[in-house]
């Protein structure tokens, strides 16, 4: 059935982005909150519904497109980045979102992930990091901690986990943000920033899988500890956190340290001020690597650097070639070169 073309006539609301499919995640799954946050984000972006595309791989998280009343493609495991790249190159006017999991993007899809980031195609990646393979019922993933016991690692996982942000910056990433699935407004803010950034935006969402890895992010997200455990970064603002808003991050030589304002002569001025636009990755990487219990976990937009966008250059090259072309049309071209006649 063709829906009425309302997208141009009336202004869009959250509901316009809710599809008619029943949402099929486990009750309590963090994916619900993310879905909701995305649906809250889109209306304000000013994109028409028909110009928005969600592309996913395979995994619980990858069922996402079915629930969005936009164009959507639930593809194959690990390949969403490549498919989304094709969509965007084919039609640069589209707002393209890749929805993926830690297994989908960092296990089987790792190669497309790093290459997409390197190319800086203008896509938004929502990486649902629940540190587990949910859909296949609980094996350790490339972000699972060492020692993690799962069905496929009954003696504990042997592997060093990736930090998605670190890997992305190692692949020359220009936009990286981290948000927990427990903060709806924060998610919407960050998703909006990601959408507005031109180039590949990677948002890592700390997502809870209630079934196979419940509470894995609890230390970061629980009501009791979150203020001490989260450092919410804002560009241009000093790095302050804690229940009392009196803790901060300071640079000591080449390392970061947690300090308390008011102790040992520390003032707000002693603290680092977040600069998301800095081209050098040094400080961004330090922020990405901060981990509990020594440090709070850095959240928000950690890096946001504007640089040339793949498809812009592609289109420019095409336009230039068209301007300079000696052929008016294909027949012209076919008839050019060394041609002879048989009579």
């Amino acid at each position, binding site marked *: *059935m*063709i*829906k*009425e073309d309302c997208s*141009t006539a009336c202004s869009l609301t959250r509901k316009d982005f809710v599809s008619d*499919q029943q949402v099929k995640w486990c009750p309590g799954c963090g994916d619900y909150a993310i879905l909701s946050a995305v649906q809250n984000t889109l209306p304000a972006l000013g994109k*028409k*519904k*028909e*110009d*928005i*595309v969600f*592309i996913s791989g*395979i995994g619980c998280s990858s069922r996402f*497109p*079915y629930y*969005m*009343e*936009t*164009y*959507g*493609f*639930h*593809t*194959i495991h690990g*390949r969403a980045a*490549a*498919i*989304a*790249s*094709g*969509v*965007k*190159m*084919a*039609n640069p006017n589209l707002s393209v979102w890749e929805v993926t999991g830690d297994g989908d993007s960092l296990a089987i899809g790792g*190669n*497309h992930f790093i*290459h997409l980031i390197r190319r800086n195609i203008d896509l938004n990646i929502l990486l649902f990091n629940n540190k587990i393979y949910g859909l296949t019922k609980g094996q350790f993933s490339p972000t699972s901690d060492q020692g993690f016991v799962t069905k496929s690692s009954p003696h504990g996982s042997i592997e060093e986990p990736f930090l998605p942000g670190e890997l992305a910056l190692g692949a020359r990433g220009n936009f990286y943000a981290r948000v927990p699935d427990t903060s709806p407004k924060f998610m919407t803010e960050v998703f909006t920033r990601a959408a507005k950034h031109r180039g590949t935006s990677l948002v890592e969402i700390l997502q809870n899988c209630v079934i196979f890895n419940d509470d894995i992010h609890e230390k970061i997200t629980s009501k009791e500890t979150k203020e001490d455990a989260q450092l919410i970064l804002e560009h241009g603002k000093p790095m302050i956190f804690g229940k009392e808003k009196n803790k901060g991050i300071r640079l000591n030589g080449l390392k970061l340290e947690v300090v308390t304002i008011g102790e040992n002569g520390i003032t707000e001025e002693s603290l680092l001020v977040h600069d998301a636009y800095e081209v050098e990755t040094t400080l961004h990487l330090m922020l990405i690597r901060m981990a509990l219990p020594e440090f709070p976990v850095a959240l928000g937009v950690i890096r946001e650097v504007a640089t040339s966008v793949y498809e812009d250059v*592609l289109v420019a*090259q*095409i336009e*230039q*070639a*068209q301007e*300079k*072309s000696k*052929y008016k*049309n*294909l*027949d012209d*071209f*076919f*008839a050019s*070169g*060394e*041609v*002879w*006649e*048989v009579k």
Partner: protein
Amino acid sequence: MIAKKKTIEVEKIVIKFAGDSGDGMQLTGTQFSDTSSLFGNDIATFPDYPSEIRAPQGTISGVSGFQVHIGKSGVYSPGDIADVLVAMNPAALKANLNSLRKSGIIITDIDSFDKKSLEKAECLTNPLEDGSLDDYKIIEAPVTSLTKKCITDLNLGMDNKSILRCKNMFTLGMVYCMFNRSLEQSENFITTKFKKKPELVTANLAALHAGHNYAYTIELLASAYTVLPADNKAGMYRNITGNQAVAWGVMAASERSGREIFLGSYPITPATDIMHELVKHKWFGAKVFQAEDEIAGICSSIGASFAGNLAITTTSGPGLALKGEAIGLAIMAELPLVIVNVQRGGPSTGLPTKTEQSDLMQALYGRNGDSPAIVIAAGSPSDCFDFAYIACKLALEHMTPVILLTDGYLGNGAEAWAIKKTKDLPSITPSLVNKDVKEWEPYLRNPETLARYWATPGMPGYEHRIGGLEKQEVSGKVSHNAENHEKMTLMRAEKIQRVKKFIPHQKVKGKEYDDLLIVGWGGTYGTIYGAVTELQSEGHNIAFCQFNYINPLPENTADIFSKYKRIMVCELNMGQFASHLKATIPQFTYMQHNKIQGQPFTIDELKNKFIKTLAE
């Protein structure tokens, strides 16, 4: 759309070695012909010295040449026109270009194209850059510098001049590699000739091997494909290689369908040149994406197809293996997609620079589940244009992946192409949604073709979701329903079978009820055609049909087969098309003639085989 009558001649080849008098071309040519005789070739040679005894170095009058005509048998003259020209400098090139056939191969020493040499050869512009050689296949080898490097490294204490005298051996090594000749005869020759000067033995052997290795490393192909345009229709012609033709065919389909081109690909011999060709045509709006691997190549194309482009991916055997899973996705999502596979020798890395027809089964079956796709195959280099065009047409009109099989022999081979006007090509009507019709669902189908109607991002009101899970018929929603799965599986199969109604009937060359029907497919067209027509003109009861449509087979196939006593399937593999025929048209008995040598058939070999079979 099968290309018109023509003769293909692969057993004979004419090579001309040309260089400055001091370059040792006579010796090089003699060496090559001696080695070829030892190899069992019939040869005829023609040395062609400069008229002036001591013409100035680097000038046209100083060019010395040596022409060798080699063949399996029946070589009676050194040949009128060369297929391959080895030109050691600009003068040699200029002097011999007019006796090189169009689309012939030029091997030249790129180091010799400096300003001075160009002036001496009276070239106003550099022929390598000014486009005047567009119709040839040029191999620019750094002969001088590599020869120098490999000999200098040996610290033999030779002077520059003596070192440079070994250039001819470097070239000879290259040519040996291209034509699969052993180095032994020339090694012995060098060892004996310079017995007294061991450093010259070492230097010349080094240069010979270095040239051989160089050609080996950069995978030089001897595309010994000579097309004699016997009875071409009147019209304008130009030369085209199979790989070029694929790119142009896609461009024509883009023009006629109004869909922009997207090619996602990863380099692989011998398919890379399609990408190289298409990427030149940004002026035409072609988007070419060199992906990180074959999977990203096809997946980016699937994305582009979802977004409404005419999407293509190109590869060869091992790359096709990697694309299997994604082809399945395109089948399930019912998206148009053209997959071009330029076959090479397998299995595994196999024989990357040799030709073979051994990816047929992979094209038909290389993915999970019951997952039918259209499979077609081109018969000659210029035919690649037509079948690339048809592949696009079928994909867009039937909403399905189409696998186009060519091979290394076609891809690198060149042929005269009757220049097409795009408006004369069959129309292409993509299966787009009809915006006037209010009823639309993602898997609503055209009752005639069973193709679903394509709605692409950007079209308001058609927002929808598809994917790789089984879908409910019509609505396209995810469905785990048992009956629906059977229905959809049969639907996907039937959709491909319906294509029969949209492709031409299979043609036969020969009389009905002849003794023996020769069946071939794809790139063996020329040689089988040659062998059969010669036998027919000698009065044998033999007929011939070459298939381009592999899946589905043309509607009248069984009809044709029923009219012959015996059917013999000839192919360059262990019998894959024969297996396919047995499985799809099991009521006939199929004899087989297979060659698995990474080489095309030759006319003689086929004729012998056919005569023997006819006599049985």
